[in-house]
Each structure stands twice: as structure tokens, then as C-alpha cells.
């Protein structure tokens, strides 16, 4: 098909070999589409040249929103909207506002950050991920290189990956349907073709 995407996959057993391979492959000017690992491999993001995660910034911004919301709410309610004398305290008793301010800061920070993470990474219950190789969530590290976006030929890329220590090198084509990742099509496929068939097709 016209719109198929072609990839070369390098499958690695050892994360240290993978790290060196990523550096070597990028050193040759090859553009790596993405690397998939079953567990977080430290320094992989540096090797791939990713910028630092902006999650701390998101957490801080949402946390500050929580702090301000809590202070404004409590001050307005206790001090302005319905002032009451409780235990002889002043209407705006700042020390008494500390616990709720803290809790709301944490609450908004956590939820805001996790929400940002889900949205930015496209994580949602009806997401259909592209899975290059099923073992990528088990015990293998998979490096995917897009053939269209690199000057090297398929054979050259495979040779390069083997040279850098890949246990297994293979070609993988993504059909248009797979690229789209439509949830409804996915469910229909799952129940008509069964998991085993679609899995065989995947690998």
C-alpha cells in the first residue's frame, strides 16, 4: 500500500548495549524514531537528545494555583462572606488556614501534573498504541528507525544496528489503519480476528 510506513527495528537485550547503540546510531546521523523499553532506562533520554521533562514546572504551577485558591476561599468565606467568632480567633486566622492550604496545594499539584502527563503523552483509556514488538513490554528494548526519514538504505541500517549489538534486526511495516489507531476498528479487529492473529501480524 501507498501509505504504509516502513521501519527498521533493532532489538536489544541489554540496556547498556542499547545506550551505546543509540549514541553510535545517532552519531552516524541516523534519525531514531523512538526507543521502547520494558522499564525506565536512565540516561536514555540524554542519549536520544530529549529536553528535560517539564513535569516539575507543571506541578509547580498547579500547586501554586491550589495555594492561591485555598487562601482566597478561606479568607473570603471566614473573613468576608460570613464572619463568625470561633474560639475567640480573628476572622482571618492565618495559622488555621495552613492545613487546608497545604492539602489543596498538594491535591491540585498532583492532579494537574498527572493530567498534563496524560494529555501530553496521549494516554487515555481508548488510546490504541502502535506496538512495534510485543516483547518491548516484557524483556526487550526496541529501537525503531523510520526508513523514509533517513538517507541510508534498509540494508545499511540493518548492518549498522547489528554492528552496534542488536540481538535481532527486522523490518516492520505499519499499515494506514495501524497508524490511525482507531479504537472502534481496534475492538472490531480484536473480536473478529482474535488476539493471536493480530499479534502474529504485529510481529
Amino acid at each position, binding site marked *: 500500500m501507498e501509505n504504509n510506513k516502513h521501519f527498521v527495528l533493532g532489538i536489544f537485550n541489554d540496556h547498556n548495549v542499547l545506550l551505546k547503540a543509540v549514541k553510535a546510531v545517532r552519531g552516524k546521523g541516523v534519525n531514531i524514531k523512538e*526507543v521502547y523499553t*520494558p522499564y*525506565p532506562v536512565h540516561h*536514555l533520554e540524554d542519549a536520544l537528545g530529549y529536553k528535560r521533562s517539564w513535569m516539575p514546572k507543571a*506541578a509547580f504551577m498547579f500547586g501554586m494555583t491550589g495555594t492561591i485558591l485555598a487562601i482566597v476561599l478561606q479568607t473570603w468565606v471566614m473573613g468576608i462572606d460570613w464572619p463568625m467568632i470561633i474560639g475567640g480567633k480573628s476572622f482571618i486566622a492565618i495559622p488555621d488556614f495552613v492545613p487546608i492550604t497545604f492539602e489543596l496545594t498538594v491535591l491540585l*499539584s*498532583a*492532579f494537574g501534573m498527572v493530567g498534563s502527563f496524560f494529555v501530553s*503523552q496521549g494516554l487515555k483509556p481508548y488510546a490504541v498504541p502502535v506496538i512495534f514488538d510485543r516483547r518491548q*513490554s516484557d524483556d526487550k528494548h526496541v529501537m525503531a528507525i523510520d526508513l523514509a526519514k533517513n538517507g541510508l538504505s534498509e540494508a545499511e541500517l540493518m548492518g549498522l544496528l547489528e554492528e552496534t549489538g542488536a540481538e535481532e534486526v527486522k523490518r516492520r511495516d505499519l499499515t494506514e489503519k495501524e497508524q490511525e489507531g482507531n479504537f472502534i476498528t481496534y475492538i472490531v479487529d480484536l473480536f473478529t480476528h482474535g488476539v493471536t492473529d493480530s499479534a502474529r501480524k504485529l510481529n
Partner: protein
Amino acid sequence: MEIVSKVREPLVTGGKTYKDITEDVCRPVEAAPNIKWLAGLGFALLLLVSGGYFLGEMLWYGIGKWGMNKSVEWAWDITNFVWWVGIGHAGTLISAVLLLFRQKWRTSINRAAEAMTIFAVICAAIWPVVHMGRPWLGAYWALPLPNAFGSLWVNFNSPLLWDVFAISTYFSVSLVFWFIGLIPDFATIRDRAIKPVPRLIYGMLSMGFNGSAKTWMHYESVSLILAGLSTPLVLSVHTIVSFDFATSVIPGWHTTIFPPYFVAGAIFSGFAMVLTLMIVTRKLYNLEDYITMEHIEMMNVIITVTGSVVGIAYITEFFIAWYSGVEYEQYAFVNRMTGQYWWAYWSMMTCNVISPQLFYFKGVRTNLYATFALSIVVNIGMWFERFVIIVTSLHRDYLPSSWVYFSPTIHDVMSYVFTFGLFFTLFLMFSKFFPVVNMAEVKSILRDSDSKVYRGRRTISDAVVPADHRTTEEEKARESVMA
């Protein structure tokens, strides 16, 4: 180069490969439930239903069915509430505080401990709600909404309202932390699934996670920040629970030592409950290679430390009561020791202060049976601690004319049994349908803990896969999928 520590035992034993971890952890999820699990669930449901009957009756007729009276207006309900909240704390401590301290031994136990936190907080939250008597009329009173009869708001100066915020924040943040940790493992189960329904369900639970380097990068950042947020949160929750008592004027409650003392007690009881559950879980699902004696010993060490902190707190309270010269305070403490509830006080002292000291002996803290027995003893002791604080302080207040003795009714006891049923039911459902051990995290420490992994590259056919848990057809189908 291989580095093998001569000092520390490996955290994962049995020379496991990455593949083995996936197999061992996914096996209980993928296999049909075994008889032990079904028996456990049956027992838990029995507790849930029988306790639920009495709880329902109590709700129907009102909380007069409980043994509480004019003076002792908090008794088993708030005792159970504080006890259950405390139990939850070890989960967050293991997953968050130990993550920040880079304690790698947390990885095998954090998942189950976090689940325990969630379920314990659910059991805790039932008590204040039920304590309202007719919660269906007023559960929303605790929310910061203007009252329907005017613009009267909740009282932000009240520790009881702080509690509402603390517990609900703690529950929701713990839930998010737990779910975030589960996502990569759900993805693993999804990719292994050989039937459409599990693949669809675990696929939806995994939210389309595919383990790309970019997602892992943000994921790690999110986990670390959630740990950083949960660490002060876990301290704040029990501190605020202690404020419920500490900001009052009741002798025996009005003490500044309550916040740190409650936090230490919570960690103490939480670790005891983690141990009780873990010793059963590792046996039930053959996880002895992941939850090793090293893990159990570490937890016993924490129990010894926190138990000693709690012991010091008891003694400090006594000293301060004497040193303050306040006769009401002095009477409250003498009454605890020698009054009508002396048996509760001495049960507490025996279970919490004396018995954990046995863990100083290596033979005791590395003995599974002794650990299991002591973990239950500690939980009983911590329940008595809350009971002593609440009931002995209330049954002798400033007015001798209102002095009474509190005795529980069947409804007190069975409402408590109901929460046990709920807790065990939830935990058993979790351990069957969710991965009990955090696979991704254990894989990430495997290399440090066991050098055998890299000696040879084993394939699925070499891996040790006990065949008794799965049918041959299923086994073949999975192998053909994964090959």
C-alpha cells in the same frame, strides 16, 4: 564487569531473568483463581455480609445501637477510623519516602502496600461518615459549599474539617500514585493477553502506554514528584488526625506530642499490616523470590524503630503530665494505668512497647512465624492505643456526675468486622486481577540485585515456567504470540 555485593543479600533471588519476572508476576493474573484464593474470598465475603447486616441495622435504627453514651460520644467508631488511617500510612511510606531515599528494597512490596493504603483509607472513611448517623442527609455538609438555608459555610477553623480535606486529598493522591505505577504493568499484561476481553480491559487500563523513551522520561519525573508530594502528605494526614484530639481541652488529648507520636504510630501499625499481608501474599502466589527474608527483615527493623518511638512517646506523655503540675492531666494518666480501663492500657503497652523489642534478636526478625505473630500483635496493640486515648479520656471528664463506663454492643463489634470484610475482599480482588509486584520497577533493579541475569541470555524455553498453573493450549498460544 560484574559487581556482587558481599554485604547484602540480593533483592531478587533465584537467578531470575526479565522474562521470569513477567511470567511470575503475570501468572496469578492470567491463571484461573486457585482454591486458596476462593476460600479467602469466601471468608472475606462472610465477614462483609455479616458485618454489613449489623451496620445496616445500625443505620436503620440510628447510632443508639452503638454502646456510646453521653460522656463517651466517640468510642469504637473513631478508634477504628484512626486505626485504619494509620494502617494506610506504610503504603505511602514504602512507595514515596523510600523512593526518595533510593531504597531499592521497596520495589517488590510497594504495589501491594499502596493497594493496602487505598483500601485502608476506604475502610477509615466509612467511620466518620457512618458516625454522622444519617449520612444520606448530610454527607455534603463537610464539603465547602454554602448551606442551602443561607450562605453559612463550613468552618475552616475546625480540625474536623481539616480532616475531611486531609483524608480526601490523601486518598485521591494515593490512588493516582498507585494507578500511575500500574500503567506499565497493565501494558505488559495487555501485550501478553491471548483472549480479546482481557486484552481490551487491560488495554483500556494501560491507557495506551507503549514504553517509549519519551513517555518513560516524563513518567519517571511524574513518579518522583508524586513521591515528593506524598511524603509531606503522609506526615500531614496523621498530624491532622491528631489535631482532632490535640486542639481540644480534654485531659489526655490536649498534648503537643500528638502529631509526631501519631505519625510514628501510624507507620508502626502500617508496617505491621504490610507484613501480615505480605507473608500471606508471597505464599499464596509463590513470590518468595521477590519478597525475600531480606525485605521482611527490613520491615521488622522499621517496626522496631517506630515501636520504640511510640514507647518513648508514652513515657514522655506521662512525664509531661507530672511535670506540668496540672492535676486533671495527672489524674487522666494515672486513671489510664490503674482505672477501670487498666486492661486496655496494659494490653497496649505489652503489644506496642515490649513485644517489638523481640526484633532486636536476629533469630526473631528473620523468622517468618515469629514475624507473622508479632505483626498481628502490633496491630492489636495499636488498636488498643487509639481506644485508650479516646475512651479513657472521655469516660472521666471534668464533671464526676457524668462519669460512665463504656461497653461495646454487638453493633460496635460487627461494624468493625464489616470493615475487615471490605478490606480483605478488596485486597483479594486486587491481588487476583492486578499485578501484585511492580514488574517494571523490579526489572529496573534486577541488574543491581542479581548479576546472574547477564551471565547467559536465556530464552522462554529455558525459563522456569511451572506448568501446573496453565493449560498446555494456553501456554502454546502465548509462546506463539511472543515468539
